[in-house]
């Protein structure tokens, strides 16, 4: 894990280190068990095609959880994620890169906390942001 990021190190417009994912179908099955989302479009090709999809697709909530990891790895060990989420705008397929990224949109101190707001997203191999979202984290200050 990288060194601790402090509030003072961060500027609006900064990109945070990206996180690269590529889901095997096996990972989708592990996620189904972990999340309790057993909807068949995520592991049963025939079922997925009957609903009009080309093939099985990555769970939206898994991509959201990837954004959780992106943020956690950036703020840990001393920072904390207070808000994160995204809209599921586009579908991602297994065995394709999903690149998670983020950019700082705002930083401020409030009630003694050092808060950083970000835009976050996952991007598919065509460069489309399939899950645009936002996040709020608290970082330690060098005080």
């Amino acid at each position, binding site marked *: *894990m990288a060194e601790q990021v402090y509030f003072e190190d961060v500027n609006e417009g900064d990109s945070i280190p990206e996180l690269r*994912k590529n889901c095997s179908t096996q*990972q989708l099955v*592990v*996620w189904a*068990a*972990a*999340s*309790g989302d057993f*909807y068949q479009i995520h592991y049963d090709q025939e079922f997925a095609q009957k*609903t*009009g999809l080309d093939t099985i697709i990555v*769970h*939206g*909530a*898994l991509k*959201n*959880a*990837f954004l*959780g*990891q992106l*943020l*956690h*790895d950036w703020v*840990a*060990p001393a920072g*904390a*994620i*207070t*808000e*994160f*989420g*995204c*809209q*599921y705008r586009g579908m991602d397929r297994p065995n394709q890169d999903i690149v998670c990224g983020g950019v700082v949109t705002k930083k401020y101190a409030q009630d003694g906390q050092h808060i950083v707001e970000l835009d976050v997203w996952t991007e598919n191999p065509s460069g489309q942001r399939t899950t645009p*979202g*936002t996040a709020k984290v608290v970082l330690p200050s060098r005080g």
Partner: protein
Amino acid sequence: MAESVITDEMRTAIGVESAPSTLEVTTVGCRLFARAVGHTDLIFYDEAAARERGYRGIVAPPGFLGTPVYQPGGRDPEAMGPRYKIPYKRILNGGTSYQHFEPVVAGDVITSRSHITEFREREGTMGAMLITYRETVYTREDGAVVAKMYGNIINY
């Protein structure tokens, strides 16, 4: 835009709180969730690593608020909230957003309650769709609200 599918029955469902669900945050559940995502921080896997960092136990990864207690025969239908008919067959998760107020750790037992906040309709590339917005509040046994989730489901 096609005729609205939002009925009076659906409108009366807005704001009606579901029956509570119990979610258990276990060591196994935290590890499985962390593994499924690909987390590498040991606080999600190892008790000693988590305690060394000041947590009460193995930490629930971001977005994990426990595993609903399973009952054979299905959940109490009341826990799913009010039932109404929607004229669409297909369903997608439209988005999820979490607010985390306090760390959740293995051993916590959480009660969740949710309600619909809004219905919206849109004409998309996939045809007419109904978007249902829901808010879920997660409360620990000592009464502390540890998280909230804002989600939307798309029927089309």
